[in-house]
């Protein structure tokens, strides 16, 4: 079934209007209109993601090498297929144990990617970007650098779980200095979360105003 671009434009506009109004009705309260639109959206989104996986992952990375006729490519492409068969066995409890092999493979790779990525992708680069000179130069970077170094170190300290010291009252807890540093760290933490929270509201306002202008455009279009 092929549509003309005008038909496509009209249909997607009408659908967009209906789904936007139905989902925004959740502001008033949970209602059947919202539920219908939500479940339809979930269904279409699942379908769309499946199509993307089919066209953009399985086809180029699995089908193409399998059908390429190159034996090495075919062998390499069959390994994930075998693992997939083990994964399917997990559906029934009796054969679920066999499926552990596939899950173990995924978790092994996932854990390594997570640990390696965290280390080389975040930990080391961020540590390196925190090596800032605190030499009191003329320009204002000294103050900024000082705030960044102090902020980073104290925020890290604020998350310390293990309490070694004893407070004045003799109970186990953070010693005074650690409590001060952790308090400063929490100040930085709250400030960071506040800035991000404000940014998220601004993003939401921009998206909502774009939706409003689309709805308004459609209504004007219908009226004219």
């Amino acid at each position, binding site marked *: 079934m*092929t549509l003309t671009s005008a038909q496509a434009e009209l249909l997607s506009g009408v659908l967009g209007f209906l789904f936007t109004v139905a989902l925004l009705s959740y502001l008033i309260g949970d209602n059947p209109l919202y539920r219908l639109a939500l479940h339809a959206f979930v269904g279409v989104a699942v379908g*769309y993601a499946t199509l993307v996986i089919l066209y953009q992952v399985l086809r180029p990375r699995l089908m193409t090498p399998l059908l390429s006729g190159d034996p090495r490519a075919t062998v390499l492409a069959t390994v*994930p297929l075998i693992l997939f068969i083990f994964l399917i066995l997990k559906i029934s409890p009796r054969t679920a144990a066999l499926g552990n092999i596939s899950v173990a493979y995924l978790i092994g790779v996932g854990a390594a990617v997570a640990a390696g990525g965290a280390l080389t992708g975040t930990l080391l680069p961020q540590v390196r970007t925190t090596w800032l000179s605190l030499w009191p130069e003329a320009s204002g970077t000294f103050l900024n650098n000082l*705030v960044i170094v102090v902020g980073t170190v104290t925020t890290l300290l604020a998350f310390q779980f293990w309490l070694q010291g004893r407070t004045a009252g003799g109970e186990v807890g953070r010693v005074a200095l650690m409590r001060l540093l952790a308090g400063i760290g929490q100040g930085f933490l709250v*400030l960071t979360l506040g800035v991000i929270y404000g940014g998220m509201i601004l993003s939401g306002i921009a998206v909502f105003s774009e939706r409003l202008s689309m709805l308004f455009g459609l209504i004007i279009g219908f009226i004219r």
Partner: protein
Amino acid sequence: MKYIIPAAIAIGVGLVTLVTYFFEGADILNLRLVLTNWAVILGGLAVLVGVLNLLLVHARRVQSQARGWVYSLVTIAAALFMILVGSGEGLRSGISPLYEETSVTRVLFSGVVVASQAALASLVMFFLVLAAMRMMRSRPNLWSVGFLAAVLITLIGWMPFGFMSTVNRIRDWLISVPASAGARGIILGVALGTLTVGIRVLTGVERPYKD
């Protein structure tokens, strides 16, 4: 005993993949790319099983007339319709219909998915404002006051009015210096946590693959 093989696979594959992060060299890199590629393919295949499970769960809810079973029916219909139409168009035109201007798949994507995600993101904005308003009721302490002050400066500090130039500078400084320092501390902490959990899996201490 039962988990020796899965544990061996997880630890073996994991250590090989991890080592390639620290050693250069084409062979090692290729080994890692093959392992991660298999994981991506297996992940893609898992989506097919997952979608099947999703449809079966909704079907069972319809069958048992559980509460809200009508909506489950709508989800099943929408998903099947999208998959069938998308596959059909793809087989017929030979190319991916996902981005074809006039394909039904593209119409459903921009009419349903784009509009719904934007509408839900707008709802998120309303709920964030509501939550910030209620914050002094649920957590009336100094931290909340500091948090709300940062939210207010971010919300209005960007407006390019002349009289607000100092506020603009304060806001830009807040975002680029203290907030980025705090963000750095948080993501360093998250990286440490991720690293220790990863080490637990790779040393066999944590075995989420047990069933």
